[in-house]
């Protein structure tokens, strides 16, 4: 039983590694992952204070750099290095997840729908956890994150863990799934 669990753990780790390095396979994918990472970071940081962001951008769209700059410092001062690192890690993982999801969609492989359905909840859960304070604030629950355990940090860590689990489940998007819990057939291209 323990042997089976270890094998499954090793296979999950291999799948996660395959998913994480997949954007390195072409220049376009790497560039795309970079763009999505930066876009996600900008979106997450600006969403920490949506009312301010809306007013700032309504007055002058070029103030977006000012918004990102001051809100990055705001995130650091209110959540510390851990909180800021979680936003960065989430952005990087989203860059990878979106690149992999695009490949899954383009190849329309048999298990594609399942894998995308697997990644999406993780992306959304982690995203909501990362920008929760801003979204809750926009809904009128000012200070809501302050009453959550560790000011919501636990929620954000959980969201990122969830995203990693879903990435590991999907694995390398070029390979064919051989059923739920059965891992992937390495080297078998879907093309």
């Amino acid at each position: 039983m323990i042997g089976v669990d270890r094998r499954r753990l090793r296979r999950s780790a291999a799948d996660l590694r395959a998913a994480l390095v997949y954007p390195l396979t072409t220049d376009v994918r790497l560039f795309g992952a970079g763009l999505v990472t930066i876009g996600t970071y900008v979106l997450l940081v600006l969403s920490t204070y949506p009312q301010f962001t809306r007013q700032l951008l309504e007055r002058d769209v070029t103030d977006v750099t000012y918004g990102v700059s001051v809100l990055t410092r705001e995130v650091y001062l209110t959540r510390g290095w851990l909180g800021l690192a979680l936003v960065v890690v989430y952005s990087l993982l989203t860059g990878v997840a979106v690149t992999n999801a695009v490949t899954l969609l383009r190849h329309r492989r048999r298990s594609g729908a399942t894998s995308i359905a697997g990644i999406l909840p993780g992306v959304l859960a982690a995203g909501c956890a990362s920008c929760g304070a801003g979204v809750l604030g926009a809904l009128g629950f000012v200070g809501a994150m302050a009453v959550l355990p560790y000011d919501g940090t636990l929620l954000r860590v959980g969201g990122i863990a969830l995203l990693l689990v879903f990435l590991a489940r999907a694995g390398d998007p070029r390979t064919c799934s051989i059923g739920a819990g059965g891992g992937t057939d390495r080297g078998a291209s879907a093309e």
Partner: protein
Amino acid sequence: MDDEDTITRRRAILAGGATLGFGAGVAYLATRSPSTDSTYEPATIHEGSGASGLGIELSGRPIVGEPDAQVDLYYWTDYLCPFCARFEANTLAKIGRNYVDAGQVRIPFLLYPNIGEYSMPAAVWDRCVWEQVRGDDPNAYWDWHGEVFDVQRSSGDGWADDATFADVTERVADVSLSDVESCRETRGDAIRDQLDADASAAQSAGIRGTPGFVVYNRETDQAGHLVGAHPYDNFETAIDRVLAT
């Protein structure tokens, strides 16, 4: 699979470098301190009375500027709010020199405790300090208020507690720590009621965070609102627009 569809050393190095650069850029933005302009001292601070034309209760609240200034810039703050510290350091002095000293704008200082556990106790300290100094030396309130934000800017997490606020109160000239402590003990409940009213006024004005501002022309009844540490130009535009109505 085409030849290009493999992981190359060049791409791995590029990705590693870009990730490090991204992290370093974020770290730079996080640690870059804004320049501070803390030399400003307003000519007049007075105590408000009654409700304003917008229905915001000003009785007992500190107001920076001339009592008959045409425009009110209601300012809701929280001592635990880093964004408020940025506003205080970068923008408040410019508004003071250009509009408050010219007699065009007055700034009612209101509180909206919402950031952390010590937000409310910090707000009670504020109002107790104001109650002690408003009669004889209202400008001591300005010094105390600025000193607390200076401490916030130079401290890390968990800076706000009874000891820090007592220390600041003791340091600022013309503020009696024992009188303020006595006020916190005997007037705490009444002050919290007053603070709840400030927070309700902010919510009614559509403010969803701090620092929050409403710009209001008392003569023409025109108003606009701003939320967050906007650049000075945005305040200038908002004030000029309301003044022109």
